[in-house]
């Protein structure tokens, strides 16, 4: 039996479309308050029933216009053709990817909305360099959905998907204690509270773990602000029980500045790392949690819980602090495991001029980092995400057991490791021939697959390993007691998660992950995505579908399994607004912890108190004294 409480006719206007494009779609909502005690099996049953109703509707949610192939213009060099979407009406279109003026661009033409051209990658040379490292995955052998609609309107996952999930996101709530001006996701603006019960979460996680041949083992609990849930520790425990070996919590961390004991509980429950918003080192660039970050780091130190700093990069807004953000990470490398930068995805009707101003792509950020670190971290120190696939291939060939492969599209992400010695930053590529080593591992994996003895290959690799390492250029602490070689031996002999973890303690991971938007959307990237979301109806959807077409994935599915705000307030006896964070800047800046955290990175006395108050309020966080 379906549990519809609402079966409404909703008028949907395709954004930017004419009146003709207005369509009627039905909205489905389950009576979520009646499911508070329902077991996971009940959620499975309901999800199976309601899923077809939530699927995108052709002619309503999308159109297909594939007859028009965009042409190259003079001075343009073809990279490839692909499929993309119109940013205004979501129609499926053919697109051309090409080089011009040293950059890579994407262009498409919508019969309704004309030509749309966008920067795809800011540097054509790095595009070619990264392209050499593309490896594709092995797909999903038991897809959750049959193919009915064209990609990307059939996500869930279907058999078109080429990569298995590397990291799956679970939205634990859409409540948030902040109300950032640019966010439309949180409960008060959405008009409903999405907060799945623990049994519903268990169902979703089981659904994720069912995928073959490799279900995800890494989970990110996200929101809203997941730490607002009183049962967040229980959620982490459930994730561990359901087989996720890596659990991270995506948060602003603000709650941990005031509740250090929560950090301890999270770690004890099995949280591996926090994934914390951190948009810069100054209050200008990071009005979200600049004042709280020093206290959060203290709480994490006490709890021995590592953190990855996550800046969203907006050109001209915080990109001037790229070098400083990395130096901040290195200053706190005892607890900061990485800095994972996310170039902005432009959502909504952003005019072309504005897009060109705000847009930053992975190579732009990499080159900016090169400038801001005086070449200490060069553009050639970075490798694309799929470049590590040979490690998986090698370990799989040796052990005979399937290993997770990170086979995203090469344009989606980049990474390197850096070490700090005195005032010098030393990328791993200065003392390890990373490229040579990865190619060697791939070659050896293929030899084993062709029937060569794995014992002989392993021995050869161990002997050869030293040749890829120049210890004289390695940081002192890695040279001492042969720690670097020990790390490498452990990773490639023991090939377990812990050895990699131990390596991390000596290094700062630098990453980039550029999520797409409708302007630069490329289905070749979507089909290779390995960062997914699990939805309340059990579908597993790539990040750049879930968040890029939220109205037919994220919002539709979450709303269907939500409480009205009134229902939620009646159930909990609390007002939604009572969680809103108010900042006491005077108190936060008066403690030495604040000053010391930024010492040598940012002059905290350079901004007046009045200016700080203004920055916080302008961002949407009230200030109290």
């Amino acid at each position: 039996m379906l549990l519809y409480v609402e079966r409404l006719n909703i008028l949907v206007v395709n954004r930017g479309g004419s009146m003709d494009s207005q369509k009627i779609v039905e909205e489905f909502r389950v009576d979520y308050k009646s499911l508070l005690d329902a077991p996971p099996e009940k959620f499975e049953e309901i999800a199976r029933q309601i899923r077809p109703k939530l699927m995108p509707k052709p002619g309503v949610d999308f159109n297909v216009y594939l007859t028009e192939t965009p042409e190259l213009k003079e001075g343009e060099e073809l990279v490839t053709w692909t499929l993309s979407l119109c940013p205004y009406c979501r129609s499926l279109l053919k697109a051309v990817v090409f080089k011009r003026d040293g950059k890579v661009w994407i262009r498409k033409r919508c019969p309704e909305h004309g030509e749309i051209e966008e920067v795809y990658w800011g540097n054509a040379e790095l595009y070619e360099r990264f392209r050499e490292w593309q490896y594709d995955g092995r797909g999903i052998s038991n897809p959750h959905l049959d193919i009915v609609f064209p990609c990307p309107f059939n996500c869930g996952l279907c058999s078109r998907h080429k990569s298995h999930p590397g990291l799956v996101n679970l939205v634990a709530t859409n409540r948030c204690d902040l109300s950032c001006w640019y966010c439309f996701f949180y409960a008060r603006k959405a008009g409903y509270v999405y907060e799945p019960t623990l049994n519903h979460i268990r169902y979703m996680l089981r659904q994720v773990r069912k995928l073959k041949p490799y279900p995800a083992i890494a989970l990110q609990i996200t929101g809203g602000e997941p730490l607002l849930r009183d049962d967040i520790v229980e959620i982490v425990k459930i994730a561990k029980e359901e087989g996720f070996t890596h659990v991270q919590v995506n948060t602003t961390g603000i709650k941990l500045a005031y509740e250090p004991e929560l950090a301890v509980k999270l770690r004890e429950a099995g949280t591996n790392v926090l994934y914390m918003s951190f948009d810069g080192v100054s209050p200008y660039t990071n009005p979200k949690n600049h004042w709280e970050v020093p206290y959060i780091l203290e709480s994490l130190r006490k709890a021995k819980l590592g953190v990855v700093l996550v800046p969203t990069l907006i050109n001209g807004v915080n990109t001037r602090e790229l070098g400083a953000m990395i130096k901040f990470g290195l200053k706190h490398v005892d607890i900061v495991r990485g800095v994972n930068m996310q170039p902005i995805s432009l959502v909504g009707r952003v005019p072309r001029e504005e897009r060109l101003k705000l847009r930053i792509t992975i190579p732009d950020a990499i080159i900016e980092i090169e400038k801001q670190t005086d070449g200490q971290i060069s553009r050639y120190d970075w490798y694309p995400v799929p470049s590590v696939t040979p490690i998986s291939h090698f370990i799989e060939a040796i052990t005979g057991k399937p290993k997770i492969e990170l086979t995203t599209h090469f344009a989606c992400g980049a990474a390197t490791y850096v070490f700090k010695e005195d005032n010098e930053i030393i990328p791993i590529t200065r003392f390890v021939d990373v490229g040579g080593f990865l190619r060697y591992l791939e070659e050896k994996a293929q030899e084993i697959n062709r029937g060569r003895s794995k014992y002989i290959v392993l021995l050869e690799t161990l002997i050869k390993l030293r040749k890829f390492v120049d210890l004289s250029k390695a940081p002192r602490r890695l040279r001492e007691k042969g720690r670097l070689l020990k790390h490498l031996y452990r990773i490639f002999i023991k090939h377990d998660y812990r050895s990699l973890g131990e390596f991390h303690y000596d290094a700062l991971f630098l990453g980039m992950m550029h999520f797409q938007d409708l302007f630069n959307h490329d289905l070749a990237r979507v089909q290779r995505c390995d960062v997914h979301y699990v939805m309340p109806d059990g579908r597993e959807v790539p990040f750049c579908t879930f968040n890029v077409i939220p109205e037919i994935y994220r919002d539709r599915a979450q709303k269907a399994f939500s409480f009205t705000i009134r229902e939620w307030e009646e159930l909990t006896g609390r007002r939604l607004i009572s969680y809103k964070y108010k900042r006491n800047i005077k108190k936060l800046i008066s403690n030495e912890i604040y000053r010391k955290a930024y010492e040598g990175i940012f002059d905290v006395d350079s901004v007046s108190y009045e200016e700080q108050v203004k920055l916080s309020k302008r961002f949407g966080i009230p200030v109290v004294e």
Partner: protein
Amino acid sequence: MKIKSYDFKLKLYDPKNMDIDVKTLVYSVVDDEISEIKGSDEPITLDDFIDFDREFSNNILITFTDAIHGEFKGVRKIHVVEGKPRFILKVYLIRLNGEKHRLYRVLRIKDSGLEDVYMDRLYEPKPEKTRIENVSKIIGLPPSKLPFSLGSKS
């Protein structure tokens, strides 16, 4: 009943190099006999978008998006099935970057259309002997009766 299959050649340069050539042979299994059903060629059109993905996305991880991405040449083949076979067997003869592969797929005819019963996947390789035994068990015929007995070359 009509059954679709596709033969195609695809050369990809982005995001990675790939040179693949796929030919599909279709057989019907009636009682204890297996016989090839020849198809007639038709051009592939945009209407094949969904069917092409159903045919190749799971077993060889090629999608219509890949076809758009690269240099693609192909034909749709229509096979007319007489009577009511117990099973339809599809054999895919693949040359991927110079290496030959042979994959099997068993389908059953239902009122609602064709239903997959068995499918080999290119990227989860199992020995061909095992795969042929799987097919043989499903369709209830000895391996020697299958169109490609062990050791033969495609």
